[in-house]
């Protein structure tokens, strides 16, 4: 049983959305309505309850050398977004029912038969991934194709990807591959190629890493995502102080009040 991961290489992505379709077909996820968001060729704008893979279209004015375009047309960078499957996952920590679990492959999985729809995971995710299905009430996100991994298959999106932009494999191997790829890209003159895997914050790295061009913020990837459990200590300290004040204040108020019943 190895710890697995995605490495999504946006320099190879052609924006075909095969990953979105494959994900929907394999996981029986409802369609989102084939409407254009108006932001390049993006449909839904973000991952959501019925969008577990989401291709981002970063469209920019003609920039020779980006996206292999002619320098006359708009330049595009595509990047297929997905649940990050955090090493320390905010949703998993927050879930009060135990519906969200860590699988033997290292992924974060929401058990649909256990989820009770409290939506606390939605506000606990620093990446805005987990979403509540409005009709059903429960929370949904990428399962990391837990069912497929169980029988030794790669996730549907990785299998359908025609350019191997979505790589799937053992996590440390992919991390090493990412460094090699980054070096290769930079050697080829893509000085803005970056690797996104926030190991420096409380998230402690992800099981869905990205190779991007330029600042990760362009792709709505936060520079310093934090697991909300980091706020617990301060919160419970304040709660203990509040409880102490409430208790002490009530005692004091009644004890100093002369007009006691006394019976």
């Amino acid at each position: 049983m190895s710890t697995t991961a995605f490495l999504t290489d946006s320099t190879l992505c052609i924006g075909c959305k095969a990953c979105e379709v494959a994900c929907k077909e394999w996981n029986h996820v409802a369609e989102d309505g084939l409407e254009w968001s108006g932001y390049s060729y993006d449909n839904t704008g973000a991952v959501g309850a019925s969008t577990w893979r989401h291709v981002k279209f970063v469209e920019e004015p003609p920039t020779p050398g980006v996206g292999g375009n002619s320098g006359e047309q708009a330049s595009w960078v595509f990047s297929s977004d997905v649940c990050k499957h955090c090493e320390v996952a905010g949703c998993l920590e927050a879930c009060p029912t135990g519906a969200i679990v860590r699988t033997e492959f290292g992924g974060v999985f929401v058990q649909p038969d256990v989820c009770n729809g409290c939506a606390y995971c939605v506000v606990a995710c620093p990446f805005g991934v987990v979403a509540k299905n409005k009709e059903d009430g429960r929370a949904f996100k990428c399962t990391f194709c837990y069912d497929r991994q169980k029988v030794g298959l790669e996730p549907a999106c990785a299998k359908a990807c025609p350019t191997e932009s979505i790589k799937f494999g053992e996590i440390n191997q992919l991390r090493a591959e990412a460094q090699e790829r980054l070096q290769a890209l930079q050697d080829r003159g893509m000085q803005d190629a970056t690797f996104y895997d926030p190991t420096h914050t409380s998230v402690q790295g992800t099981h869905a890493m990205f190779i991007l061009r330029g600042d990760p913020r362009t792709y709505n990837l936060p520079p310093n995502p934090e697991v909300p459990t980091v706020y617990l200590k301060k919160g419970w300290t304040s709660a203990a102080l509040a409880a102490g004040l409430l208790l002490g204040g009530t005692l004091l108020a009644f004890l100093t009040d002369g007009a006691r019943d006394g019976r």
Partner: protein
Amino acid sequence: MSNEPMSLPEEPDLQRELRLVELRREAESRGKVGVRGIRPEGAPFPKASPETGYYEIPLLKPPQWTHEIPLYFFVGGAAGAAAVVSAIGHYVGADRKLVRDARYIAAAGAVISPALLIADLGKPQRFLGMMRVFKPQSPMSVGAWTLLGFGSAVSAATFAGVLRERYGPSFPLALIENAGEAATIPLGLGLATYTGVLIGATAIPVWNQNVGDLPLHFAASGLSAAVGMLELMGHSKNRALQALGLGAALFEVWEGIRIEGRSHTHLDPLKHGISGAITRVGGALSGPIPTALRLASMFAGRERASSLRRWAGASAVAGSLLTRIAWLRAGIASAQDWRQPLEIKPDPQSWPNKHPEFGTPSKAAKV
């Protein structure tokens, strides 16, 4: 059809012709035309860049809770504080009717709270999911168990108390009533404070940046609501309640100063927009207004003082409810602000999520 060249209308539109003449006059006299021309709907269009994120689409998902949850924060907070007032009042020998009424508030809250949570979850059996595990690292789990324990303890104590009043004291009843009452103190304190940790320990900036304040703020809000309810129930001459109400109101004044006196971007939803307006009205009703009314009642005659305190109580109850609604709405507004999690310094002119006016140089234009 759409490929046909635009043709002139057969009858010239006088208005539009006059407008062309007007433009010509302006150009002749000033050497330029001041107006902006046609602005496409939604322009200037958001871009994907390090300064604008991904087309200014919010990165975080907003809280999904609707009105049940702030209502629960209000009811649960008041019930928790009322239980503490009831139990402590009982131990130190306060007015018996006050002790009983406070317990009734707690008991009512213990019934209404789970009903609100079930309404939020959609199906009653879903609430049982909360009872599958106990997770100390999840404030939602801690809170669900606290509420369950609180409900059991308060119901047992209240029921035993009612039986005692009807059929006279007996040892088993006294045991249940006292044990239940003793348990409501820690559980009530937990219920009145945990909701602050619940929303504080999230990815929502306005909540997690105030995690140190929220439990104190919510406890004060719960206490002032419980005191206000008791005063409205006729305990408007009790001096202990006056002291508690004044203490809570003064704390809320301080909390208001904390919010208004600092200028952090994460506090913006508490100052701007609808969430800001509700925060301010709720804050005024929780802090300065009851403080002033309570201080005035100290110098008023007996009947006048009682009336002023009932007004203070009503203000505090309304303030507590609005405060809880305000914090949820602020959380939703905070999640919409894409700049915060991306650590992009917001343009003070364009909060929340508004595009800069057409024609002014925008950060987005520099791509």
